[in-house]
């Protein structure tokens, strides 16, 4: 019973991480049809910041990793994607792939191929007792962080003027501009939010592993993207639910699969995703088909 509950809490915690990754990817996809493969390198940049600065001051490390995440996201936007806005999703995807490789090489050159380690959030690795059951504190904090950030993004999008503009530009960018919405500003804000979400993912993953290498953010981004597609990229709630589902399944496979099958857990997640997409090709939460956006 106790291992079962612990594994469920771990699964929800993993789900929260992948939901945050999928939301960061889904937001940017919604606004400019860009499936940003380089989202992982934003996560990696924030993770390196945590690793290097945690020993000096943890509040400084947290703030700096958020600033670095937002900064890298904005640099990617203004240096590359801003100039490709009118291009097709395929062109944008390839550009993001190139950017991903470029950033990995830059991290490699700057910090070396080997992982850098530091005890980030060491105090969080203890267990706490809740109702007679011991639960990993880090899992609980990750879940709380995920819920707070998801709620914050939701409130931003639904309760603020700028958030409404982001939603409008995501739904119909040409009409949004005709209404006077500054597309450049709205895109930059969206990238900044995705950078902040990437920093949150970096924090959750770095406290788990304490080790960061140049390809640190690749796997979570791939699964985040898969989750976003699974849930339906046309809806943000779809991205979140899909990301959460992938995280939960991945974590449950890790806990429950016999040792000989555990090496195949990643492949099994993809099998799960393929089966789901066969039955719901537009994603689990996809609405009716929409017009192409210009």
């Amino acid at each position, binding site marked *: 019973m106790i291992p079962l509950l612990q594994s469920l809490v771990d699964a929800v915690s993993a789900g929260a991480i992948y939901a945050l990754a999928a939301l960061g990817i889904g937001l940017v996809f919604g606004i400019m049809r860009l499936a940003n493969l380089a989202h992982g390198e934003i996560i990696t940049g924030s993770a390196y910041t945590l690793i290097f600065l945690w020993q000096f001051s943890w509040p400084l490390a947290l703030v700096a990793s958020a600033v670095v995440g937002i900064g890298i996201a904005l640099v990617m936007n203004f240096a590359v994607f801003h100039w490709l806005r009118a291009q097709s999703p395929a062109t944008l995807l390839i550009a993001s792939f190139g950017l991903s490789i470029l950033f990995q090489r830059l991290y490699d050159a700057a910090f070396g191929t080997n992982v850098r380690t530091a005890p980030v959030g060491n105090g969080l690795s203890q267990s706490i007792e809740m109702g007679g059951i011991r639960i990993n504190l880090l899992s609980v904090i990750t879940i709380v962080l995920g819920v707070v950030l998801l709620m914050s993004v939701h409130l931003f999008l639904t309760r603020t*003027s700028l958030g*409404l503009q982001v939603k*409008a530009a995501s*739904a119909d960018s040409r009409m949004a501009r*005709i209404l006077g919405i*500054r*597309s450049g500003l709205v895109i930059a804000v969206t990238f900044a939010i995705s950078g902040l979400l990437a920093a949150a993912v970096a924090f959750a993953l770095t406290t788990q592993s304490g080790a960061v290498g140049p390809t640190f953010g690749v796997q979570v981004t791939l699964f985040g993207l898969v989750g976003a597609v699974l849930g339906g990229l046309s809806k943000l709630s779809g991205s979140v639910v899909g990301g959460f589902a992938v995280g939960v399944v991945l974590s449950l496979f890790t806990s429950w699969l016999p040792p000989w099958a555990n090496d195949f857990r990643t492949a099994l997640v993809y099998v799960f995703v393929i089966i789901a997409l066969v039955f719901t090709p537009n994603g689990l939460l996809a609405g009716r088909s929409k017009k192409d956006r210009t």
Partner: protein
Amino acid sequence: MTERNGEPVDESQRVLTVENLTVQYGGVPAVDGISFTVDAGELVGIIGPNGAGKSSTLLALVNAVRSTSSRLELLGLSIAGKAPERVARHGLALVPEGHHIFGELSVADNLKLGRVARRSMAGLDEDTEWILSLFPILREFHSRSAGLLSGGQQQQLAIARALISSPRLLVLDEPSLGLSPTAVDTVFSAIAAVRARGMAVLLVEQRAQQAVAAADRTHVLSEGRITMTLSPPDASNSELLTKAYLGS
């Protein structure tokens, strides 16, 4: 001062000046060097058959399609090549064909988006009250998802959203398309009320008779060119209207 129809025209009242506007798609002209003006408080109509270049003309005004012109001015400022959002913030509100409301947002949120292009928030409450009095159904469905409204209600929402921006020039692309007769009446009454407030209106319509009757003057567009300009008395001349549409 310049002249139109031999009458002197005060250019300080000029809201929109279009000279030699051309829009080409793949080298084929959709709009072929047309010129017209709209003054404050005027309602100017554009009619013509499908493919005449009406919508392309309107989209060119907000630079949503590429165009060339010798003069394209809104309130004395050149808007040639300016981004759609800048044109909107300078006072031109376009309601494109097909409503383009945000279906997943509520009616209230759609209306809020109209505020983005507003130059001043002074008088917002009064303007909102006036607009909701033109389209009472929007008050009733304030919190409803806009995608659940009927076609006629969505058109009313699209016009209301444009009016919230307090534009100097309201540009409507076939506002009556696909609407029930009652909804068409609501839309045309609203257009009359907008004009009575001194706002300039540029109206593209398929309902030639209704448009010609309502507008100060109506340009007939055919194969990208203005072939005729009609005045309200021409609305009852069905022979002339047929000729305007089908050519001589």
